[in-house]
């Protein structure tokens, strides 16, 4: 396992370098001169040239890239043009809010998706199985931003039982209030992932319950419940781990849309506001942070997968 972890960590290095290069490139290609944006339309040519020199924008691109990487590693992610403050503490704060949402959505998706997938597989071709599969298809065909609006209309405006935007009510700041604000956005975020997890669990379970060892367990006279819980489930869940990991990535991306719908102060909302205001340091930092966490989530999933299925690490 140690050898596998080392190999996997080493393979991460080129990917992370590539990610930083792509993020740097994306911002280099962005239209507009950062110095002009920072100083405004009335800036003189001399002050613009001075600022470009101070920021190192007059250097060749590779020098700029290595300087930027050097600063990133040291924790200096630049200053936001729009907010006039350090980028890193701001985006870390916003990222924490996004993580609440992502983690809750992942929990909802797994706690509903996995049992639904198992039940569907155990009762293949039953009415409940067919209904579940229709719902699964509906779930991942639904635009996340539209679903968010539907939930706002139903639970927030018609029934009036849940808050429709923000992270906290102005007059309250307890945990219950925070959770009530998280329910609708995390439900919107979880639906697509839940559908895919349910579908994957079902097909993985169907594959496993046709294996010889499951037939052996049945022919020993074990109850169906014991066959499923003790013998089939553990092996059926191994591929589900990968799907769940991939869905966490999907949640990190989908999070941006949900945050806009619910005006939720997470990293997605900050990023979109940054793009619209052409606040390059902020956007660059936000994209880098989300992409790096995605890479790390994928690493964690791969390691977990290798731990659960020894064929991977010896393969």
């Amino acid at each position, binding site marked *: 396992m140690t050898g596998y972890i080392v190999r996997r960590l080493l393979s991460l290095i080129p990917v992370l370098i590539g*990610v930083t290069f792509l993020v740097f490139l994306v911002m280099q290609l962005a239209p507009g001169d950062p110095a002009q944006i920072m100083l405004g339309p009335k800036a003189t040519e001399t002050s613009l040239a001075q600022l470009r020199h101070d920021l190192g924008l007059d250097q060749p691109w590779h020098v700029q890239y290595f300087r930027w990487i050097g600063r990133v590693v040291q924790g200096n992610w630049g200053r936001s043009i729009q907010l006039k403050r350090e980028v890193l503490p701001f985006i870390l704060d916003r990222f924490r809010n996004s993580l609440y949402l992502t983690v809750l959505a992942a929990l909802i998706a797994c706690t509903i998706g996995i049992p639904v997938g198992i039940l569907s597989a155990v009762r293949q071709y039953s009415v409940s199985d067919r209904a579940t599969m229709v719902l699964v298809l509906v779930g991942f*065909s639904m635009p*996340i*931003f539209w679903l968010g*609006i539907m939930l706002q209309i139903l639970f927030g405006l018609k029934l009036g039982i849940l808050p429709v935007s923000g992270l906290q009510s102005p007059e309250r700041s307890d945990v219950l209030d925070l959770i009530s604000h998280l329910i609708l956005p995390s439900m919107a975020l979880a639906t697509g992932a839940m559908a895919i997890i349910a579908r994957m669990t079902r097909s993985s379970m169907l594959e496993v319950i046709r294996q010889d060892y499951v037939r052996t367990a049945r022919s020993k006279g074990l109850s169906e419940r014991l066959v499923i819980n003790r013998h089939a489930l553990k092996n059926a869940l191994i591929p589900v781990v990968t799907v769940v990991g991939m869905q966490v*990535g999907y949640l990190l*991306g989908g999070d941006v849309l949900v945050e806009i719908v619910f005006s939720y102060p997470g990293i997605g909302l900050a990023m979109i506001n940054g793009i619209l205001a052409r606040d390059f340091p902020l956007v660059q930092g936000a994209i880098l942070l989300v992409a790096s966490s995605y890479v790390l989530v994928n690493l964690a999933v791969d390691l977990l997968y290798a731990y659960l299925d020894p064929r991977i690490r010896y393969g």
Partner: protein
Amino acid sequence: MASERVDGSVTAIRASTKQRIDPGMHIRPRSPARQALQRLRRDPAAMAAGVFLVLVALASVLAPVLAPRDPVQTHLEHRLVPPGTPGYPLGADDLGRDILSRLLWGGRISLLVGFGAVLAAMSVGVLVGLLAGYFGGWLDSLVMRLIDILMAFPAILLAIAIVASLGPGLRNAMLAVAIVGIPYYARIVRGSVLSLREQEFVHAARLIGAPGVRILTRHILPNCLGPLIVAATLDVGWMIMAAAGLSFLGLGAQPPTAEWGVMLSQGRQFIRNAPHVSIIPGAAIFLVVLALNLLGDGLRDALDPRLRQ
């Protein structure tokens, strides 16, 4: 003994076949494509989805004829009128623009973006995947590393980053979702090529001296088409959703363009008094994507019945 028995039964089969088959009759084995089409025809959900998509495409193409009003012309006296109002079957938005007309015109954009982006992503992805898989070596390593890097971003985040770089707008949004799709196709094709290039028919083609390009286009590519068609059908839905999402964020099509994501975004401000303004365009995206997913699932089952579970 054994060979006698085998020979004997073969002769018997030949004799019985001769009796049953009229020598003048031509028996043509059904091609895999025809068999798949027949299986698809027996799938009512996929067929219904296909018919629905054809109707949506027709309605979008005929938008200039079918749309009752100009999609961008404002009629402030009719602002936010509900569906069923005379002259406004699906109601009007905050500027009194007819939602039905905007929906029909918006369909043109959404379908064009969805199919156009898939076509662009597939063309580049297939080319890259074919070359990397067939020639291997440093080219394959380079392509795989690039794919790893592109796939190290959540898809919608990468699209957002690309639009941030190119600037907001419909064309850039389409380009962004297409770029995001490239590694997906490249991986599918590369995987197929890696297994196909070791097959006997490819070795045979190589032995008779067929050039690489011919082997790729005549022998390998046709055998990759099955998984590609399924992936592309499912992907059109994702691209439509992603492009509408970018427009919803203000990074894709810009107002007053009649585009489903823009309509949804603008309607969001009026969900309290006039929820239909955002419900209707969202429902249109949902139904089209649902139909594409149903058709994609049906195609997958038809092309590879072993996957049907």
